[in-house]
């Protein structure tokens, strides 16, 4: 990437609790988000994808590692020092019900963002709220309603309007469509694509659904048990996955095509607990290629192509999917 990155994380690590209940949520994760770029974080439970999103937003304190936003290190900033930064990065949540205060009217839910940073008062405030509602495809006349008067998809739009109110440079979208029905999910995905195009904001898009990630993202980071398995341009990772986990994940995600080939290697066993991740390569306990060497050291990132890297010591079969 030629642009200076908007977000750059280096060696990011987050552990929760104390031994013996120490959870290794995120271990040594590094990647960048360029201005206007959509980066997808994909992984299963325990992969640490939501934790990474919250670390970047500094809703959580990192255990180790560096987080730079627009060239400035923010990993150690205090709550007060972070306040001005809140204008520049926002979050869209998974649950369209629990993410809106049921006791507030829509205009106050969105208006709170404007108030917190003194962005608009009086008639200007009402006008902005109306505009924001229209931007996300809602009727400006509904500003006086309460969240329960809206459907799930409409609530998700309200949550998006709240995030947009401060005109952020980065939105972290944590599973923004996984609680929605397919027909409504498509509406919200198209809306997010539209907004991104119009405003040029960057997005960190977190999802367990590879189809959604493939649709939305420029680049993908594949995570397993808190570590990066593979990272690269969407097209590359989805068409020419190099890490055996990425390959398995792609093979396991159900294709809406009854004629798709069914002969696939299923991953055996369960995802290990992040309380005691395997030594060496964390994927080795389920990996079809695992050998003794895999238990030794954490595999270093290898280059597979321009911008395309993976963490595996094997020469994985270059499967074309």
């Amino acid at each position: 990437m030629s642009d200076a990155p908007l977000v750059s994380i280096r060696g990011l690590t987050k552990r929760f609790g104390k031994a013996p209940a120490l959870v290794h949520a995120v271990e040594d994760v590094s990647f960048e988000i360029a201005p206007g770029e959509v980066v997808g974080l994909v992984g299963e439970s325990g992969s640490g994808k939501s934790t990474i999103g919250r670390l970047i937003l500094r809703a959580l304190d990192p255990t180790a590692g560096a987080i730079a936003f627009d060239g400035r290190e923010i990993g150690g900033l205090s709550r007060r020092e972070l306040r001005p930064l809140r204008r520049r990065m926002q979050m869209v949540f998974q649950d369209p019900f629990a993410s809106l205060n049921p006791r507030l009217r829509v205009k106050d839910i969105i208006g709170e963002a404007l108030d917190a940073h003194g962005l608009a008062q009086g008639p200007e405030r009402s006008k902005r709220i109306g505009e924001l509602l229209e931007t996300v495809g809602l009727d400006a006349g509904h500003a006086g309603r309460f969240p329960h008067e809206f459907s799930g998809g409409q609530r998700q739009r309200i949550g998006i309007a709240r995030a947009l109110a401060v005109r952020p440079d980065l939105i972290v979208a944590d599973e923004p469509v996984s609680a929605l029905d397919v027909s409504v999910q498509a509406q919200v995905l198209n809306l997010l694509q539209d907004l991104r195009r119009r405003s040029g904001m960057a997005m960190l898009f977190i999802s367990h659904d590879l189809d959604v990630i493939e649709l939305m993202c420029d680049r993908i980071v594949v995570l397993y048990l808190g570590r990066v398995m593979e990272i690269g341009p969407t097209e590359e990772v989805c068409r020419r996955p190099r890490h055996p986990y990425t390959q398995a994940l792609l093979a396991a995600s159900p294709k809406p095509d009854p004629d798709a080939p069914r002969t696939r290697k299923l991953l055996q066993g369960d995802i290990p607990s992040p309380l005691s991740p395997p030594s060496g390569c964390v994927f080795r306990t389920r990996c079809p290629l695992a050998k003794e060497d895999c238990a030794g050291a954490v595999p270093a990132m290898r280059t597979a192509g321009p911008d395309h890297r993976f963490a595996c010591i094997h020469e994985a079969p270059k499967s074309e999917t």
Partner: protein
Amino acid sequence: MDPAAAKLFLDRLFRRKLVLFGAVVLLVIVIAAIAAPLIAPYSPTGMRVTQRLRPPSATNWFGTDEFGRDVLSRIIYGGRASLGIGMAVVLASMLAGTTLGLLAGYFRALDTVIMRIVDAMMSLPDILLAIFLVAVLGASAGNVVLALAIVYTPRVTRVVRGSTLVVRELPFVEAARLLGVSTPRILTVHILLNVASPILVQATFIFAYAVLAEAGLSFLGAGVPPDVPTWGTMIASGQQYADRAFWVVFFPGLAIVLAALSLQLVGDGLRDMLDPKLRKAL
């Protein structure tokens, strides 16, 4: 209509009817207390030595006490003190309990300190703690309120803390934090507004307990001075005549039971109506 549907319907109707009954009784008691000078047939303190311990009759519906005072009038006036003390206890314990509960639930550092004290206080029987406090503070209406407020604050604190712990983890609170909303506003608009219903329900129950406790304290002589008519002091001073003149204790006792019962019914009704899950079913 088949039997199952009819039963379901009756169940719900009966539930609602009881709540309605509670609300009406409560309203009557409260109005009577407020409008005491207008309704009471006699003065609550007017003694007539010739009319001592008269049974209920057309002139004295609830009879007269050992000084010839009209029991009905004393109950109506006594409601002012009993309900007034109850109300004051509710307001004071709500204010203190809600503040402490919010702080304990939201700030980890305060939680241990506040909850240790709360647990210690709750391990003592209510009435013993109240007697002890009144004994220390001195017997007066104001001190009874203070003592009972101290006794019930831990209950409120615990309820509010519990709800706060749940609400503070909800995504809309995280959203507010990420928007840079100030902590006082998060505590009030985002948390307090969403824990208001359990607090309200708790308030009606504490009102009922406080009315009972005030009567208990007065009965034991650890409450308001006997010359102030409250339902508790009426029973306390009438108890030695109870074998000859049951009405001097029966009617004040009935007033206490009705007030406490109606408050509990209203509390139950409020809880059902404020619970969104149950509201849908109703």
